[in-house]
């Protein structure tokens, strides 16, 4: 099962147009808490408060400002902002195709499934060809007044559209400026051996959130008025640098 149709458009590349419908591909269900006032258990709501007057400010007294330097703003009115919204034209325009392995997973954002709309003749030819060539289509489109950047991917006769993050949204790892620590070849060799020993096939279906069930059980218990035992989180003692080799050797022995 896929989620409901959320948008319709067509994929365009070269001289080909392929009509498609977009469906959500991921559904998250989780236990939802509300924030309450501790004393009277009234459900709280968010309120915008003036930092200067310390008073709630109703929506009609709010304006939008772009901070040019600290504490200085350019006020922009909603009509002006509206003008910058991209125009919708229902076209998912493919600009180029890249080898699927080239797409950095850190760019992947939301996933949708595509379904052929009207007649699906070229849809299937496109999916099959993309799978054979092992390529993804890099595309842009406009949906609900926002421009998107994404990757079309074929997998098992299905076509997916993954929205991608813009390049300036991904913080480069280099900006963390981590120090280089020298490692011995022996540490690296034993470390690599250990990782190989601990490797298993990727079987995501064997992981489920047991936590949700445990949390629900705790809520039920509290609802019946029973006491909850407070358990301290487990904290591990860090492996000291001069004990690293020893810890790796012991781990390897344990894994064997």
């Amino acid at each position: 099962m896929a989620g409901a149709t959320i948008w319709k458009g067509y994929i365009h590349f070269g001289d080909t147009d392929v009509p498609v419908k977009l469906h959500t591909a991921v559904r998250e269900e989780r236990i939802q808490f509300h924030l309450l006032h501790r004393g009277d258990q009234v459900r709280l709501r968010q309120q915008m408060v003036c930092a200067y007057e310390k008073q709630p400010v109703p929506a009609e007294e709010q304006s939008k400002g772009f901070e040019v330097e600290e504490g200085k703003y350019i006020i922009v009115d909603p009509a002006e902002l509206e003008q910058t919204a991209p125009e919708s034209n229902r076209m998912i325009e493919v600009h180029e195709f890249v080898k699927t392995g080239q797409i950095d997973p850190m760019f992947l954002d939301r996933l949708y499934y595509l379904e052929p709309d009207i007649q699906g003749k070229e849809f299937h030819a496109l999916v099959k060809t993309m799978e054979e060539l092992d390529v993804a289509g890099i595309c842009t489109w406009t949906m609900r007044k926002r421009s998107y950047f994404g990757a079309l991917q074929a997998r098992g006769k299905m076509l997916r559209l993954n929205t991608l993050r813009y390049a300036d949204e991904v913080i480069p790892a280099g900006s963390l400026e981590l120090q280089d620590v020298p490692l011995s070849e022996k540490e690296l060799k034993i470390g690599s051996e250990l990782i190989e020993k601990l490797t298993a096939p990727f079987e995501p279906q064997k992981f489920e959130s047991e936590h949700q069930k445990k949390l629900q059980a705790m809520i039920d218990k509290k609802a019946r008025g029973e006491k909850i035992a407070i358990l301290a989180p487990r904290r591990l003692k860090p492996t000291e640098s001069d004990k690293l080799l020893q810890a790796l050797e012991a781990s390897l022995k344990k894994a064997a």
Partner: protein
Amino acid sequence: MAVQGIWSGTVSFSLVAIPVRLVKAIEPGRISFRLLHGKDYSPLRRRMFCPEEETMVPPDEIIRGFEILPGQYVLMTDEELESVSPERSRTIEIVEFIDRKEVDPVYYDHPYYLVPSKGGEKAYQLLVEVMRRTNKAGLAKFVLAEREYLVAVTSRDGVLALTTLHYSEEILSGEDLSPRKEKIAAEDQSRIKKSIEHMIADFDPGKYADGRRKKLMDLLAAKVKERAPVEAPAVEEEAGEGPADLVAALEESMQKVKENR
């Protein structure tokens, strides 16, 4: 670069434990506007408000509640929440390693980075380097606030990245979308193949800038010439401002991400 941590704890594999902090890897790059009070140009802050007492509620008077009947709640303190899975709330225990190429990208959700805390630098670097050499990812589950995440720890440009994964039960199969029997005309396929081969290039996300961002920058540049920026009154930072803890800060930022969608 000093980065604010979202969470701190330990990442472990077998008998090795590395103290780390979780930091963000994504900075929403959209031009962001601040909400101001129209009258005095003072920035607005998001606060929790009690509609009954018509007052702002400080963080230490806020508690999570699960609604069992309309208007009736079971209260949960942070300590109780941490007690649900105490073995996972401060430890990211890698239970197994996998080949990165086996992971269907459908599972990837949100990426973060892990940075070593004091004393963990060497073991951290070892994990970075051996995962790079073997092209592996470590799988772990850990708990943040009320949620348990399945995560993949990977090596990226000398840093450990942590990406939350969707649970497989959250991924819809979508098999109802593709008919079992489809006819593909040979001429369609050869024409499409020719088109695609003509358009093959290298992945270069840097060249796709958001068009709207450019338009906004133009608008702002024009406005700043027209009229000088307004100035907000100075406000002293009060003690106890902002989110009560980092988990709350994370939730607030997640909320903002959702609002921006």
